[in-house]
């Protein structure tokens, strides 16, 4: 980071800044919800932002990939059926997101641009700008440091804020990010060398704060990639998986989906809906044949897609940003760190 590009904004002025963002875009930020949860949702006032909250259990990936995502509308016209694409290009700002989720959206965008470009997704993603807050202390279950997805970001971000006590250091990482900061230049001032130095100290301290027992992907990757994990081990792991699909649904990098027609009587919306590779029906064919009928095959599939070298080469990253959400939502005990450890050690203790 160049010193000249960094600025600071006093905490008392962030409200003003967010207020201006709300005037020009749909701003999605962590907010307090009824049962004490923090949930990403559209805000209408800066006071709704829950600063400094733990990373919300539900990731903000629905801002680029809604659970039910209309793709195409179909209706009856005078000359037969009329088929029209649906695009959502509303300008959005994802405010107060953590580093791992920025990396997650970055991953999803790469996947939808890879090979054939998914324009419906890409247009929505292009209209999104993120303002992330770097993590000064690792979250209890997080292991972003193993996935090159935090605690601070060196790339992939639009605007990255670092909490310096009474102010934030703001780094602009993209043109889109610049467009959030430039019009509000009056609220920022150029960062001093000491402030930039402080940011680096905080990053080093955050990295040091991770415990030694994190998630060691390398060995798991070696074994998974060449099929050197025994069927018995997959069976044991599958025995403690309850096929809820939660690991997929909360994973910032999961994007498997099904396409379904909603509506009736000549007014249909073809929707993309989240699906899970852990569901038995995910690969069942019309004939009834299912290449992944055995539970272990489905569990194995998930981790092949996540950590195999084949996918790593293709995607440039493991399919994990180390957010630790799967640890919390797993109805059984088959979360990413647990399974990676089991593959590495050749034994399941779930």
């Amino acid at each position, binding site marked *: 980071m160049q010193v000249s590009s960094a600025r600071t904004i006093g905490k008392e002025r962030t409200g003003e800044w967010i207020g201006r963002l709300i005037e020009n875009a749909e701003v999605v930020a962590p907010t307090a*919800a009824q*049962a004490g*949860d923090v949930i990403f949702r559209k805000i209408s006032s800066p006071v709704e932002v829950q600063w400094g909250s733990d990373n919300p*259990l539900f990731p903000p990936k629905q801002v680029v990939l809604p659970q039910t995502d209309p793709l195409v509308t179909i209706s009856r016209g005078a000359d037969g059926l009329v088929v029209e694409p649906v695009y959502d290009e509303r300008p959005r700002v994802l405010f107060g997101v953590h580093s791992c989720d920025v990396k997650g959206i970055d991953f999803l965008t790469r996947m939808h641009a890879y090979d054939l470009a998914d324009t419906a997704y890409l247009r929505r993603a292009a209209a999104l700008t993120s303002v992330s807050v770097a993590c000064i202390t690792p979250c209890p279950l997080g292991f972003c440091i193993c996935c090159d997805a935090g605690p601070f970001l060196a790339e992939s971000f639009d605007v990255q804020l670092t909490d310096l006590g009474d102010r934030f250091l703001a780094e602009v990482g993209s043109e889109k990010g610049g467009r959030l900061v430039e019009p509000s230049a009056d609220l920022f001032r150029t960062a001093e060398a000491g402030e930039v130095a402080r940011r680096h100290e905080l990053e080093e301290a955050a990295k040091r704060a991770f415990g030694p027992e994190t998630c060691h992907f390398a060995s798991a990757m070696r074994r998974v990639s060449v099929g050197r994990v025994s069927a018995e081990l997959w069976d044991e792991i599958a025995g*403690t998986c*309850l096929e*809820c*699909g939660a690991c997929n649904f909360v994973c910032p990098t999961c994007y498997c989906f099904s396409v379904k027609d909603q509506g009736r009587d000549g007014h249909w919306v073809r929707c993309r*809906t989240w699906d899970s590779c852990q569901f038995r029906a995910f690969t069942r064919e019309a004939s009834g044949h299912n290449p992944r009928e055995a539970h272990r095959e489905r569990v194995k599939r998930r981790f092949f897609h996540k950590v195999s070298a084949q996918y790593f080469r293709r995607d440039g990253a493991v399919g994990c940003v180390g957010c630790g959400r799967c640890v*919390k939502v797993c109805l059984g005990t088959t979360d990413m760190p647990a399974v990676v450890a089991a593959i590495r050690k050749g034994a399941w203790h779930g």
Partner: protein
Amino acid sequence: MDPVLTTCPFCPCGCGFYLHVQDGRTEGVIPSEGDPVSRGRLCARGWGSHEAPAWGERLTEPLMRHEGRMRPVSWETALEAAADSLVATRRAGRTIGVLGSARATNEENYLAVRLARGALQTPHVVSCLTATYQPLLDGLHDVTGRHAGSGTVADLEHCEVIILVEGDVAVTHPQVAGAIVRARKAGCRLVTIGAVASQMTSLAALSIASTPGRERAVTFALVAAALAGGRLDTATIVAAGASFDALRRSLAEAEVSEAVARAAGWYAQAQRAAIVVAPLVADAAELRRLAGDLATLAAATGHLDRDGSPLLILPARGNLRGACEVGASPNFLPGFAPLSDDGAGSRLEGVWGVPPVRETGLDAAQMLTVARGVVIVAEDPTAVMPAGALAREALRRMECVVLLDAFATPALELATVVLPIASFAENDGTVTGLDGRVRQVRAAVRPPGKARPGWAVLAAMLGRLGPATEYHGAEEVRREIARAMPPDIGARWREVDEARVVPRAERNGGRRPSLGPLAPCEPIKPAPSVAVWDGVLDWGSDPLVRYSPTLCRDSAAQRKLFPGGFVELSKEAMDRLGVRQGWPVRLKSAGGEAVAPAVMRADLAAGVVVVPFAFRDALAPVMGGHGVTSVAVERA
């Protein structure tokens, strides 16, 4: 729109989560870490619960049958026709009844009870599944004086020993299964009792094989083993006095296997130990005795009501506990008040303005056979009644069938008046979780077309049949429920604060459980094979599953591959018969015989034939409406 906090409509675990609403549709589910039941963890059904209301085939306007066809009518006309036809049927001296439902809220079930025992002056109000659950509560009551177990699902995670009378909780109650999986990871010893090698069985430290329908042979022996092994709760035994000796004597004939002795020893010695009973297929008397055995086991070893030692009876479907509690049960007034309780009678009269009918009601199967008029609240009896085909015939014979439902279920074909109501996600109210927590469900979107909340429709029917009854919202109904119940149980309905607090008001403050002799356990007659319904019931017939594009897939595939049904056999049995996948086998019982394709199931014991509940009608000649029966199997 803000996410709406609500409670899952599927199983009775009662998980809380938020519904994400976009453009007037439920678009997704957001888990809630702060929810005391789910703590952020949901099963596949919970994750898919936003789909059905938005995608399903919905009833959007009142309908009336006219010259054999259903025609749309106004609410006014439909309500009048419903009330008039019920009154006319009753005046003609014929029986009428009301069916509540595990799919309906407490408010809807309660108003169904008030409609029956109050406005319509009939004692017949029950839910289709009451008979699978009420006997178990009665069995607990025999020992503990309370129609309830104790503890929570979360308690399971800290137990050292869990005794699970298994159906298939990984499928039926995934949140319970999850707690068991985590408990096991923490070192808990799991004991399963069952006929099928389920996922939970594969995790068990000890699994005790039982005969379908005769699980009691094991629970009876467990009590005997615990008493023989010592480590009993002195205070309970001293208080029981001579009854304890009678109990001991009643167990003299029990056959205690080594496994049973070990399991009983683990349970008795643990500081925190749990008993969990999954939905079972057995007759009512057997269920009642089984629950009595287990309550006796818990009481004698000091686990009953001990903090951290839950005794959980799992209802088969969402709000079955709530339906029974508010009075959809033949032998009780709301809150399990006995019919003979004069205090309850005058309490209800004060609330209802009419004295409640205090005769014993019929169970659902009898009611369908006897009644000529019925109000059905959010249920398809043909899909959930043990004898679906008989239920269909019974409904066809009726003079009036008033159906309240959100979805176009097959029951629609048999209705005379259809009143469209709000579905999950469109309705306010409460449901009761398996642990007794009264949990809120909230409307996130508007019901489609002219559909109205079920409580409002029932209130309108009450108004037409008796004194004007007006509620300003479901909450007012809930407060009335609190007043209608015995005070200790009603307390749970008074304040619903997201049900963070586990209900303790009903605990036996100082009361000792009443130990006494247990009914003898008849020896199991040897039979070539035993055919049994799967205890999962048929999730595929639940409209919330059927209309969800994600959730319907497994059941749809099963129906597609075997439209005429199938039976499941063990590999051993198939080898012995010389049949392969899909080949027909003939089942013969005392009742009759039927032929169905055989499907191999690796986790079955050799002598067990599983009849999927969805296809029970195809096997009706063999099963004869029973859940379990002895059969001979041969190659067809």
